[in-house]
């Protein structure tokens, strides 16, 4: 019966995760998962062989109170560290359960105690401890209580990590041969804790979410391992579910943030990528590089998209592809406008010729003065091979050679996407601060190819 209910809970989790992965259905997804959890916990309390109910209920009450308060009073901006903290608690809980189980083994002094649970205990301790300490570092880092937001990288780090991991394994082996509290198990936990710290510190603040996601996967694995320890189906299914999906999610997030997955897995994925063949000064600043899939999702979800074409669209002869992308978006109810800067391109009316060739209706073309006031309410601006004409330095930087020229106020939009091949400057030969803004996503590539890729990605959403 218990296992049947656990199965039910597991199904709820699976469906919950599935629903959670689409914005439209995420809320019911979360509720379904919570309901599954509720069923599993109540079932355990009632028919899970709980003897000492008061202490359990006390623990649950205390935990629920703290959890609810934390959730209610954490500011929205502090969500990532909150998740890190909670995740650390989950890992710790797994390790503690493993520890308790070890004590039971010790307590009953039953020599016949199978080898598998012992290995599982060691593994749960190891993974739980890594999860806990790693999550705590991530939490502190995000709270900026630790080392600021910068990554700490040092030579030989990978070697050290490897050494520590081997040491932990050795301790685990010693413990498995004699599964009782003692030096071996303490060493195991201590080493694991250090390992968790070392895995996280090389990672920069901006990349923390990826790490938290990975640690979340670890805590799932810890739970599954604990399941093997206490021979519990529910833990195994749910834990391995979270473990596996967490890894996939980590991978997805890595792609979205243009990071290498292997680097994350092994820690120390280091300094943020420098922006392609960017200008010398630029290399120091971080840019967010996106890919077609990610951009397509954002575009598809937008209500209004303004396309700001420039000389790069002309060079790439991307006008037809751009029109096709716009058509696809319009089909999905997105409102499309084109913002034509008076000097975009290399001749007066350059954009007009090309867009007319691609049969873009004149009604969708807006002059700069018409459209500038509306950027504030625009969800996404898609800048295609334009540079000088969207350079905010013209408004803000009196030392800029284009200071005073009116430009498209694209940076006021919620999201700005820029298609160009590199961070190289345009006609005026100057760097563009737009590319380094937090609401800008760079889509590096030839304008035509990227527009085609975007259209295709939108279609296949």
């Amino acid at each position, binding site marked *: 019966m218990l296992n049947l209910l656990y199965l039910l809970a597991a199904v709820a989790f699976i469906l919950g995760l599935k629903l959670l992965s689409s914005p439209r259905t995420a809320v019911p997804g979360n509720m379904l998962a919570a309901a599954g959890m509720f069923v599993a916990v109540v079932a355990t309390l009632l028919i899970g062989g709980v003897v000492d109910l008061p202490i359990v209920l006390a623990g649950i009450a205390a935990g629920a109170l703290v959890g609810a308060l934390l959730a209610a009073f954490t500011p929205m901006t502090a969500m990532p560290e909150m998740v890190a903290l909670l995740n650390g608690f989950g890992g710790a809980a797994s390790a503690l359960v493993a520890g308790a189980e070890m004590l039971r083994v010790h307590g009953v002094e039953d020599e016949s105690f199978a080898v598998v649970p012992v290995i599982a205990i060691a593994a749960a301790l190891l993974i739980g401890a890594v999860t806990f300490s790693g999550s705590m570092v991530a939490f502190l880092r995000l709270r900026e209580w630790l080392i600021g937001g910068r990554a700490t990288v040092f030579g030989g780090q990978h070697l050290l990590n490897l050494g520590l991991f081997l040491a932990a394994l050795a301790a685990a082996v010693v413990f498995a041969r004699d599964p009782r509290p003692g030096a071996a198990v303490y060493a195991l936990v201590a080493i694991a804790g250090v390992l968790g710290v070392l895995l996280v510190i090389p990672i920069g603040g901006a990349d923390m979410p990826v790490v938290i996601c990975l640690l979340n996967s670890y805590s799932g694995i810890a739970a599954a391992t604990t399941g093997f320890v206490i021979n519990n189906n529910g833990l195994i299914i749910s834990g391995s579910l979270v473990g596996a999906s967490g890894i996939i999610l980590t991978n997805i997030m890595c792609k979205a943030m243009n990071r290498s997955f292997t680097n994350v897995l092994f820690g120390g994925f280091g300094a943020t990528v420098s922006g392609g063949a960017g200008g010398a000064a630029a290399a120091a600043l971080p840019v967010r590089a996106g890919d077609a899939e990610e951009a397509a999702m954002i575009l598809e979800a937008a209500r209004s998209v303004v396309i700001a074409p420039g000389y790069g669209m002309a060079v790439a002869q991307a006008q037809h592809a751009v029109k096709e992308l716009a058509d696809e978006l319009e089909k999905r109810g997105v409102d499309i406008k084109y913002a*034509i*800067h*008076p*000097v975009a391109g290399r001749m*007066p*009316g350059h*954009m*007009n*010729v090309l867009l*007319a060739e691609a*049969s873009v209706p*004149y009604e969708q*073309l807006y*002059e700069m003065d018409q459209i500038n006031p509306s950027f504030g309410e625009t969800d996404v601006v898609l800048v295609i091979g334009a540079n000088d004409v969207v350079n905010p330095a013209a408004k803000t930087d009196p030392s800029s050679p284009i200071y005073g020229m009116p430009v498209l106020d694209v940076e006021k939009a919620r999201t700005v996407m820029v298609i160009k091949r590199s961070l190289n400057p345009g006609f005026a030969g100057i760097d563009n601060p737009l590319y380094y803004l937090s609401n800008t996503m760079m889509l590096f590539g030839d304008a035509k190819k990227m527009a085609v890729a975007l259209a295709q990605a939108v279609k296949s959403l």
Partner: protein
Amino acid sequence: MQIGVPKERRSGERRVALVPDTVKRLAAAGHELLVEAGAGIAAGYPDEEYAQGGATLTDAAAPWAGEIVVKVDRPLPDEVAQLRPGAVLVAMLQHLTEPELVNALARGGVTAFAMDWMPRITRAQDMDARSSMSTVQGYEAVLLGAELLPRMMPMMMTAAGTVAPARVLVIGAGVAGLSAIATARRLGAVVEGFDVRPATREQVESLGARFLAMDTELADTQDAQGYARAQSDEILELERQTLARRLPSVDLVIPTALIPGKTPPLLLTRAMVESMRAGSVIVDVAAPFGGNCELTRPGEIVEHGGVRVVGAWDLESRKAYHASQMYSRNVLNYLNYLIKDKTLALALDDELVSFPLITHGGEVRAAGGGA
């Protein structure tokens, strides 16, 4: 057979009935070609090319003695006299507008084919000079209009402000009208098309232009050949009302509405022209038949309240090179169809022969307006 190609003598005419390429093909088929010296010069085809193509360059009289005489325009009265009895004349006769000429041809015993009176059927399309000339007319009307306009056609958003696109209204969406629509669209203008035949809506839209619809549904506006019927006065008034609403915002108007054998419908009155903005242009493609505009004077540019009304009548001649090429191709196809084994066999039960046959055996035939 002997085929004569005289030089066109109507003033302003620059076309030639056969171009060197078609001459070569006819010569290769064994015909003897008598081409008046200098016949193709104005269209851009020098005499040498005709000679190379196998033609004999002659004086002005010789071509008229040919068994077949091919021309662009209908012959002038003195030219009719030069035709031998029994000779075959192939030209755009516009016979419905000049019964006198038709009678003269009949009297002269001439077998006269009207290249501009081919049946409007799919099979006859490659002989249909009306279509090919209309294509040139529509193109050239827009080019001429664009050139006369003090505005530019396409929209341009520049550092010196936005140049609004020109608005073009094409009245009559037959072959010339569609060609005009296509050309104006190419130039980036905002184009509307108007016609009484409902089938034209789809055709106008198939060129990416807007169709200007009347408030009333019209029925039975088209005859078996696909030509428009003459409309009642009420309908014409309704049409004018529809058009009048658009005119104040239109820069270039290209009227092309025709009804074969009738005077073209009057669709643009003086008052309507006066409602247009100064600087606007009307290129009246219907001008040779009297025009769709009250102010049109064929062959002239009338300026009225800042609006210029072009009585376009030499549109094809302005593109004489290609117009000649296309016309001569029509003629070639028709001659190839008519002549079997180097003789002309008149299968009078064949629509393609009987329909354009205007005079034959001394008589004016039914199609030619005879009994």
